[in-house]
């Protein structure tokens, strides 16, 4: 029964994303990437395989992260703002089911757009006669797990702040993740011992998106795949972090007057 409820809610989110043309925008962007690559390939770009791969991976990562943030951040805030939440919560479902269903919907919509864009990018790279290695599949898997994390953070932030604030914060955390982690590391090294725990805690609380991006292994051939235990550990980290974010959001939403 619960799975049916989650499925219905998720389908609603996906249908909404498709009708809003979110996924179409991704498709069009992908098509433009293909066109540009085709043009570059036509004029000859032999030897620039690494550059092309690097660019493609960056574009893929950037666009899909934006989609993840947009879809997950607006889900609950729009429900509350547009008052579409009332007829939903008037049904015999718990607030947990509602949140989880919306989350699953945001994740599926993000994955679909990511895979569309990945397919488009793959076509674009074929213009450069680029060969894909096994690590590409690992990259896609980890990226999807990372995007799930982005959705969890986006949805939770949307429950504690306004839509635009949630989007801005999510964007800063997502795109500045590596930079923030590095800055916190520097802060930790230079801070007095009494303050080091603070930096450590802050770093632990922030989502480590950078860990899920193995784009460099795709760009540079010969690096090989990441060990399976690393993939497993990252998946476990993502599940735990999503759970943490979810509980945080649910705690806020469960008693919230609407």
């Amino acid at each position: 029964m619960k799975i049916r409820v989650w499925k219905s809610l998720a389908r609603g989110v996906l249908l909404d994303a498709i009708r809003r043309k979110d996924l179409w925008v991704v498709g069009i962007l992908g098509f433009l990437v293909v066109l540009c690559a085709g043009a570059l390939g036509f004029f000859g770009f032999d030897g620039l395989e690494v550059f092309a791969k690097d660019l493609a991976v960056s574009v893929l990562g950037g666009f899909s992260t934006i989609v993840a943030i947009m879809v997950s951040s607006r889900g609950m805030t729009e429900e509350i703002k547009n008052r579409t939440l009332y007829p939903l919560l008037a049904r015999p479902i718990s607030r947990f089911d509602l949140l989880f269903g919306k989350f699953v919907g945001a994740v599926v919509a993000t994955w679909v757009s990511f895979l569309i864009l990945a397919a488009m990018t793959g076509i674009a790279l074929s213009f450069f006669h680029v060969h894909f290695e096994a690590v590409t599949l690992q990259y896609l898997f980890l990226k999807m797990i990372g995007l799930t994390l982005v959705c969890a953070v986006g949805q939770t932030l949307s429950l504690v702040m306004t839509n635009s604030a949630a989007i801005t914060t999510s964007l800063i955390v997502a795109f500045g993740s590596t930079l923030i982690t590095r800055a916190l590391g520097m802060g930790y090294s230079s801070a007095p011992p009494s303050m080091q725990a603070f930096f450590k805690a802050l770093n632990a609380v922030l989502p480590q998106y950078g860990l899920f991006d193995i784009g460099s292994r795709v760009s540079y051939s010969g690096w090989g795949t990441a060990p399976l235990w690393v993939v497993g550990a990252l998946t476990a980290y993502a599940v735990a972090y999503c759970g943490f974010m979810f509980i945080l959001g649910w705690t806020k939403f469960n008693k919230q007057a609407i």
Partner: protein
Amino acid sequence: MDSKPKETCEVTEIKLSMEASAIAVHDLHVQYRSKKGKSVEAVQGLSFSVGRGEIVGFLGPNGAGKSSTLKALMGFVQPKAGRAYVFGLDCGSIDSRKRIGYLPEVAMYYPYLTPLETLTLYGELQGLFGSSLRKEATELLEQVGLGESLRKQNRSLSKGMLQRVGIAQSLLGSPELLILDEVTSGLDPVGRKELRNLLKQRQKQGATLFFSSHELSEVDMLCDRILLINQGKLIEERKLDTLKTDLRHFAITYSGDVILNDLADKTWSESGNLHTTFQNKELLIQGVQRVQLNGGTVIDIIAQEGSLEDYFVETIGKAAA
């Protein structure tokens, strides 16, 4: 030490009596925190009950606490104090919501879904699935006059049409209790009549209706009973037929030298004739008989229905004073 068992007994007693009712509210308090952080008590110790199969109108001026009460019944807000039960079940519980169809005050539905998809989504959340859900959703949309707009996206529908989508979704799964907030909002006269018929039909099938409205004509035509609230407090609870009887006035126009002051509500002279109003039929009959016995002529007899609007304004005014 003694207070706890007593309280438990009281709760059990209230709950038992509430199982017989569709809705039972006891000393309900609902509090909001305003944007400035100030606490606002929207509902202040409200107590009432709605019997199974009744149609009850919930009336009050803007900001009286109607929507807050309905939201508390649905579990959208946690009451600060008091108890509310739906069919003896705690209000807002999943079990109670299984038996309720709810229409929110403002009809807003997913703009990019069609009415049929909207109802299918809500139906699935209600526990309905497959072809039977699709059939029921289509039939309901046809009943509310959206047969030709089944596959148009909600964003292209007018306010009245969205209200119809809302009404249709509230009727999904044939709920035993319909809680409708501002039910006629945005509907044209034809839509109102259709809605009235639909709701009456549901009542005949055994449903209980509890709705808030500012449309007193709808209340007049639909309700068995009304609850009037102001500033979060219940100020009147009346059966509509007795209220109408109380509001009814009788008047006669007569000529002749007859004094009816002891029977009359009001007497005045106009165009050489006397006009007198009476509070009830018995006084009217006595008045007519006296005029005839004393050689006067009764020119006209009028039975005037009292205005629900006047009653509403007057009662709210008195309560505010």
